[in-house]
């Protein structure tokens, strides 16, 4: 049985926080330097067809992970499932960290991020999924911060105002679904097009959220499984592990279904599936981020092994990033309406700047998380 004491991690944040903070500052300065000196040419995107590159992949990845964590947090906060109380606060902290990391990358990628802040809400382009996505992310940020403040003031998960928690869950659900629609609505891009995408994005969000909370719970306890409270360990090895297995299974089913159907399809644009399955990244996502973690979390004897949980959670997190990359980039590889001078399949690999942005986002998210964990522990003590 989880107790309130299990909400208090014995996490000493200093080395983690300082290390992540220093790495963030270094990567941020280098990213700004590259952006100032090279301008938008620092990106490897082109007018030939790959318009959205690796930074958008990472932004989507972080955003979907954030809303996935919020959905997991909503189970105890909104639905009152008290068994999940021990991880509720960590989910909220991680959701904030992932959100900040993702949005920071987006702001470095966008040409006019500040203009987006006023031009989007004031012009009310309700026909655009991106309008709704930006609007929902804005509302989600506010609700997430209010939830975090309630928890930081010492409220137990059950004491967070339920309307707030319900709103958090609904906004998270909406963002994941709309993020899927951003791609799924594009009928002339058959690699993306499909009504199932919002559902896939919701499932993958939850999958990412579960993987993150399992992995970072051990991080919070200094990667020393013995120090994790018994109730929390049982939670990770029990309901959360099983839930992750189910999410991974659904993700695999969707991925395989899309792959097989894509390989059988004749339409122009679907030839990218042959390319996709020829890439190691696809198999990394499928096997490394899907099959292996599924075996770990679906097998009762393996699921209870802390180090296998850590490795499994990490693999899911990495595999999801690989899947997000091949989904978003490969969906643009067939050039839209170009002549013989354009290759049949475009080539794209992240530039040095795009990799720097990725690491900047990762280190920023880790800094925020470490800071919140440290602050939270201090407050409770």
């Amino acid at each position, binding site marked *: 049985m989880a107790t309130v004491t299990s909400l208090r991690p014995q996490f000493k944040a200093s080395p983690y926080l300082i290390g992540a903070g220093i790495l963030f500052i270094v990567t941020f300065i280098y990213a700004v330097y590259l952006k100032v000196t090279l301008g938008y040419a620092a990106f490897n*995107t082109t007018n030939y067809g790959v318009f959205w590159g690796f930074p958008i992949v990472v932004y989507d990845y972080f955003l979907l992970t954030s809303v996935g964590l919020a959905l997991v947090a909503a189970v105890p906060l909104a639905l009152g499932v008290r068994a999940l109380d021990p991880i509720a606060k960590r989910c909220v902290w991680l959701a904030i960290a992932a959100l900040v990391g993702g949005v920071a990358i987006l702001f470095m990628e*966008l040409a006019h991020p500040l203009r987006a802040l006023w031009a989007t809400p004031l012009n009310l382009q309700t026909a655009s999924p991106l309008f709704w996505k930006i609007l929902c992310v804005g509302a989600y940020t506010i609700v997430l911060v209010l939830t975090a403040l309630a928890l930081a003031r010492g409220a137990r998960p059950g004491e967070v105002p339920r309307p707030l928690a319900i709103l958090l869950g609904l906004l998270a659900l909406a963002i994941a679904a709309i993020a899927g629609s951003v791609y799924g609505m594009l009928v002339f891009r058959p690699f993306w097009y499909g009504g199932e995408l919002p559902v896939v994005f919701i499932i993958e969000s939850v999958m990412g959220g579960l993987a993150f909370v399992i992995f970072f719970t051990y991080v919070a306890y200094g990667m020393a499984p013995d120090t994790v409270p018994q109730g929390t360990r049982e939670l990770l090895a029990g309901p959360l592990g099983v839930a992750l297995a189910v999410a991974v299974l659904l993700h695999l089913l969707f991925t395989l279904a899309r792959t097989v159907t894509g390989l059988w399809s004749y339409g122009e644009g679907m030839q990218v599936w042959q390319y996709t399955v020829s890439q190691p990244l696809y198999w990394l996502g499928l096997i490394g981020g899907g099959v292996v973690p599924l075996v770990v979390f679906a097998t009762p004897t393996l699921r209870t092994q802390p180090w296998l949980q850590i490795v499994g959670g990490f693999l899911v997190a990495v595999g999801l990033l690989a899947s997000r990359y091949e989904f978003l980039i490969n969906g643009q590889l067939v050039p839209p309406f170009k002549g013989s001078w354009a290759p049949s399949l475009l080539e794209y690999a992240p530039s040095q700047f795009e990799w720097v942005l990725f690491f900047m986002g990762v280190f920023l998210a880790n800094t925020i998380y470490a800071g919140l964990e440290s602050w939270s522990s201090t407050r409770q003590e």
Partner: protein
Amino acid sequence: MTKWGMVIDLEKCTGCQACTTACAMENSRLPGEAWQDVLFYHEGRYPNVKVSWLPRPCMHCENPSCVAVCPTKATYKTEDGVVLVDWDKCIGCKYCMIACPYGVRFYMDEKPVVQPDLREVFPGDGDRIWNPPYRMPDHLADRKKGIGIQPKGVVSKCTFCYHKISKAPKGVADLDEDDPATREYTPACVRVCPPKARYFGDLDNPNSKVSQLIADKRGVRLKEETGNKPQVYYLAGGAAPVVPGERSQERG
């Protein structure tokens, strides 16, 4: 209300690229990033090779997906049926480029397509991305309509030479370079076309040349299946203009 549209007769088009050059001069385009382009295709293998081409401006669709997806309404449709970009509202998210089935939108901040990088040879003043020697006169430029030299960090596209056509006499059916009364209001690509393969006029006026050509010669639109309903029609002898895809060649 006028609904401007274009007809391109593929049986007349020689693929000479005069339209591309005129557009680049008129609209201060960087080489390699032509709002108006001619796409060349080859099919088959030697000795049975067929070369075909397709002039491709912005389609200024009736139901444009680029307008629908733009989160800030920077891309909009005018009352006379032209799709424009308000550069003061564009945030550079490029969703319109993702959502355009015809690949007619450009983000000029990318790596240069040709060397030397003319943005460095002719550096822009203010937030203009470059300052070409053949630039459009400043008094014609209009950031709210995406006309002129493109600023940094925004998306641009063919405007149907809106700085010309918007000044045409009210109620005119066609803008024709052969008519002295409308010559100055005719889009650059139409005006320079040597074989006169392009026609520009009011699609809502049944007496306009473009309406008659579409009816008489069975004008067709590209990618009807997307629902965008282009306002650029092609005349291809009654057949659909063939744009060979890689897939059709693979499976052929």
